[in-house]
């Protein structure tokens, strides 16, 4: 293990490491801690200029209650869910199939198609913006959740295919050969042999795509407007203009908006990290 495990070092080194850890963490998360502290203060503290002293009262429930019951925030959150969940299902479904085709079969153009997916996954969004917006408008899907979902599914398929194909490549190929010798139809091999083995990859991608899509802002402002279809990332700007300069409410709103991916991460940590490292770093 590198660096040398601290247990093997002197007592003084161990103690200083143990004290340094929480200090480093607090410094690292300082901007976030500041926001969390703002979100439980009463309005009076801000008008009195009491930003960092003791809060004059503890307003956790008032502030967060306002976010949930006196703003459009729940609607935006609901939109985010209705955009994110179908996207995850769609992108994972499409990419298990493309990954299977590219990972198992040898045919002309295999690598070319694979590289098309990878390259497409890295392009700047702006090169897609005008045509995708036109396409969405002319399909009558502008300012709908479906319009966003369709685009997200297509774009995420690039990244998901990269991941799935590499994962399938690492599976024992003998399993598939054995099934073929038995005369099992190709689609049944996909369904009954490969798919069950892909569960960890599916879990990793699902968590990762959930976070990516939940956090998307660019496409939300290009393809939607207003609380009917906008997800929470775009909605938070309207929320902030509703509560201009009321930092206690804006802080609470941002924390609420950021929460779902955070919970997802803490619940599914192992899958999440497996996904992030693209399976390439083991």
């Amino acid at each position, binding site marked *: 293990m590198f660096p040398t495990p601290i247990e093997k070092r002197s007592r003084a080194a161990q103690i200083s490491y143990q004290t340094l850890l929480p200090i480093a963490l607090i410094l690292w998360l300082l901007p976030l801690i500041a926001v969390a502290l703002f979100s439980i203060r009463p309005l009076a503290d801000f008008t009195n200029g009491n930003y960092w002293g003791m809060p004059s009262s503890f307003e956790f429930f008032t502030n967060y209650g306002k976010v949930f019951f006196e703003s459009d925030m729940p609607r935006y959150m609901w939109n985010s869910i209705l955009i994110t969940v179908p996207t995850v299902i769609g992108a994972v479904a499409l990419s298990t199939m493309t990954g299977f*085709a590219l990972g198992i079969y040898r045919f002309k153009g295999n690598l070319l198609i694979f590289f098309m997916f990878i390259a497409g996954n890295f392009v700047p969004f702006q090169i897609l913006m005008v045509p995708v917006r036109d*396409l969405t408008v002319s399909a009558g899907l502008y300012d709908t959740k479906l319009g966003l979902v369709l685009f997200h599914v297509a774009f995420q398929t690039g990244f998901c295919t990269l991941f799935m194909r590499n994962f399938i490549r690492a599976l024992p190929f003998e399993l598939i050969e054995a099934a073929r010798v038995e005369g099992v139809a190709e689609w049944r091999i996909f369904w009954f042999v490969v798919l069950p083995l892909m569960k960890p990859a599916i879990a990793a991608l699902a968590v990762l795509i959930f976070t990516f899509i939940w956090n998307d802002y660019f496409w939300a402002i290009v393809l939607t407007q207003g609380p009917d279809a906008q997800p929470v990332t775009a909605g938070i700007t309207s929320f902030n203009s509703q509560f201009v300069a009321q930092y206690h409410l804006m802080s609470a709103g941002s924390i609420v908006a950021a929460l779902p991916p955070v919970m997802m991460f803490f619940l599914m940590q192992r899958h999440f990290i497996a996904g992030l490292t693209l399976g390439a*770093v083991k």
Partner: protein
Amino acid sequence: MSAATTQRSWYQRNKMTVTPLLFLLPGVLFFVIYVISPIIQSFNISLYDWDGLGEATYIGLGNYEELLTDRAFEISLWNNVKWLALYLLAVPAGLFIALFLNQTVVGIRLYKSLFFFPFVISQVVVGLVFSWFYLPREGLLNALLTFLGLDTVNILGDPTLATYGIIAAGLWPQTAYCMILYLTGLNAVDPEQIEAGRLDGAKGVRMLWHVILPQLKPATFIAFVVTIIGALRSFDLISIMTNGGPFGSTRVLSFYMFEKALSEYGFRMGYGSAIAVVLFLIMLVFIAYFLWSMYRDEQEARR
């Protein structure tokens, strides 16, 4: 009856070609409609003067000629260079934190998760959090500076500082990402090689450079890929924190394109597309390099 048999045998004969094509069809179709063909269309639109609604007039390379003398474009391009150069600091910073956290003391798992945590939050919220952190009166940064007896700064209001302030905000989640890549990589470092290095008298930085880093190469590669792409894609933070200002000093190409094509500054789809094409070509250099490295790995794996 006989038609059915020939049909079946045709499928039987070609099933190793037909099956993958059928599996690919839906994914490729989606991808071509929403990603590949828009790229080509954008190249085409960049040759027109078009407001997105009325007639488009063909003007050849007119948009590109205009870019050459556009001061705002120059500032955006220059800011992109700053982003790229400074964003790469996330890679060594991530490595540094990973080395710091790669221990087995009690509770270290929670520490690792909490250090990683900024990456999970949306860039919109990161942008808000940092713009409040920088606020001249209410912000924690200036509260700390005052506490230390220093002058206060209005980072986002100062055209010379604003871009750096935004990049710093961007480095926060990006460093967390690189950290997790390196933590995973460090887990897989071969203990025997470390032992062999120790016997050869390698320690500290020399050990890191000669023994550890070569083994972390896959992690470093991905860290560079995601950081470069992330730097050139930066949009959310700028839009949230300064909206391009003060005086357009924090624009980057991605943001300037959006402004030109789709905001109160007018709907110049052709001009916007020309900016997008420039950004695309810059990124293409990196994409080509990534694909080439991956292609080499593929060839090696096949051997």
